[in-house]
């Protein structure tokens, strides 16, 4: 039985242990399991309210969503100037087709801003709660440590998904208003309809969100190690930068396929006529491995840690 399982309230009554095997007892256990599920939903909703309701977080997400608005506005303003079509990534295609603003915005956010957002979400989840001293009060309520960590991981992931969704939405709206949508010219030269292009952009956003799960797990593990949230943010951002640096060094080519960020920019697959699902699958598999390893570490640490804050 897990620590957090729902229990009957009030003084326990005494009955032979064998009673647990009777149908009535089994039915009650079923009811308890159901109650536990309901209770986890309640815990998760409360956690989501806290995470999504935090002013600082809302402001950060809003700033992130301003990136496509800003880029779109700059492209629009310089469309007839000498700078037209210059810049990183897919920016030269934006003025021709507003849909490209989605890839452009995510391309610009992926190296630093999104990892920073992931780090903040991870830092707030456990270390933030420890530094505020609220962790000890949650645990003596009581709530099972594994359950609490699971709820916090889901809430942090939700925050990341919401942030990416808002960036995508802001890019779609800005792109449509400034440049309109048209048939999407793929990297390989062919083109697909605007509707298919729209769907591909959603694919890009979804892949980027899933690509960040490994880093989130790393951040959550760091978060269970300390009660200093800013330390977690710094360490997690450093991990993502380090991963990008290593990925750019041919000397360590052997480890490239296992790096957190190696497959991050494979979202460009969605812009090819033949999307290489195996490549995208590899990218997601790498994320899954990082989530498994660091999720387990976070769980092992958090379920045994002394809470002294």
């Amino acid at each position, binding site marked *: 039985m*897990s620590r957090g*399982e729902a*229990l009957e309230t009030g003084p326990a009554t005494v009955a032979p242990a064998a009673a647990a095997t009777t149908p009535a007892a089994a039915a009650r256990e079923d009811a308890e399991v159901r109650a536990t599920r309901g209770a986890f939903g309640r815990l998760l909703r409360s956690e989501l309210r806290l995470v999504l309701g935090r002013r600082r977080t809302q402001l950060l997400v809003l700033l992130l969503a301003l990136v496509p608005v800003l880029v779109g506005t700059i492209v629009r303003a310089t469309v007839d100037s000498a700078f037209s079509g210059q810049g990183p990534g897919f920016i030269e295609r934006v003025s021709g087709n507003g849909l490209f603003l989605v890839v452009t915005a995510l391309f610009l956010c992926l190296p630093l801003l999104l990892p920073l957002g992931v780090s903040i979400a991870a830092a707030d989840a456990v270390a933030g709660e420890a530094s505020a001293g609220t962790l*000890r*009060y949650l645990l003596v309520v009581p709530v099972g440590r594994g359950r609490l960590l699971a709820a916090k991981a889901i809430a942090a992931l939700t925050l990341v998904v919401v942030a990416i969704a808002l960036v995508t939405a802001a890019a779609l709206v800005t792109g449509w208003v400034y440049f309109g949508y048209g048939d999407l010219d793929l990297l390989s030269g062919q083109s697909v309809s605007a509707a298919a292009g729209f769907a591909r952009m959603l694919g890009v956003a979804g892949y980027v969100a899933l690509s960040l799960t490994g880093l989130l797990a790393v951040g959550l593990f760091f978060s269970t190690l300390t009660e200093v949230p800013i330390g977690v943010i710094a360490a997690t951002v450093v991990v993502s930068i380090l991963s990008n640096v290593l990925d750019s060094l041919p000397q360590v080519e052997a480890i490239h396929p296992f790096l957190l960020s190696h497959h991050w920019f494979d979202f460009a697959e969605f812009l090819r006529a033949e999307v290489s699902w195996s490549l995208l699958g590899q990218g997601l598999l790498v994320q899954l491995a990082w989530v498994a390893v660091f999720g387990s570490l976070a769980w092992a640490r958090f379920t045994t840690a*002394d809470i002294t804050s």
Partner: protein
Amino acid sequence: MTPTATRPDGALDGGAVGAPVVRSEGLTKRFRNGQVAVDGIDLEVPRGAVYGFLGPNGSGKTTTIRMLLGLVQATAGRAWLLGEPMPDGGARVLPRVGALVEGPAFQPYLSGRANLERLDAVDASAPRRTSARRIGDALERVGLAAAARKPYRQYSLGMKQRLGLAAALLRPRELLVLDEPTNGLDPQGTREVRHLVRELAGEGATILVSSHLLSEIDQVCTHVGVMRQGRLLVQGPRDALGTADAAQVVVTTEPGSLAQARETFARLGLEETAVDGEVVAARLGAVALADVAPALVAAGVPVLGLEIRRPTLEDLFVELTGQGFDVSG
């Protein structure tokens, strides 16, 4: 496992009559830096007691409480709450335990009420249906109803402490563990906390209340345990500790009668008689208090004042340790 199971040692669950509500055996905590914060203590808090858990700053009270509640793992020894072993029995037993640990802590940007809603939502065994009412009652009880919608960060220290108490009272509790509940409160707030403790005890709850201020606790507790440098120096019923024969009788009289009063005391069998200004003091010992005044009157000593002084916990502590109640490393 169902809640109807028996304990591994064969004893019945939970509320067996007479079983201590809090118990520990050789409970020890050595932190990773080598500091032994708690050093093999055997606590025993009987049902219905108001147990004053006393000791200077740094003597290991909070660490003990953290171990009892399952926040910190003991290096050695065992602990039970309401008959359940901790920390393994936490899910079963903690819903019946309200706790304040090392001061209140809440989300600063949520209101007092939203903070309590959060704690209640986390509680898998709390009936959701009654949540709003229970939260309202708890806020009412600590006098925070009017400020319930204010963000926590705007609360004064006293209001924060009250919200901490409200959180401990969200559900009916059999045991309340209150770590320094009067910290940071003004004298009025301290009195209110004492009143609340008495009230809760009156309703049948057992209360473990820690303090580094002996005088704040002296007046409410039925039992005391005194910590010093991680060790439990002494514990037991309050009255048994401040033993009756340690009480002093002090008589105020006219300067000319001091010697006579002193002789009378000696004749009665009082010990450690001392004259100080216009008063004569002596240890009461086994002498009945009722005999003192008549004897003085019979000897012609004008009794201007007669007072009985029981040793305070402070006196007791000094007696036990030969030292003052100072911070220990």
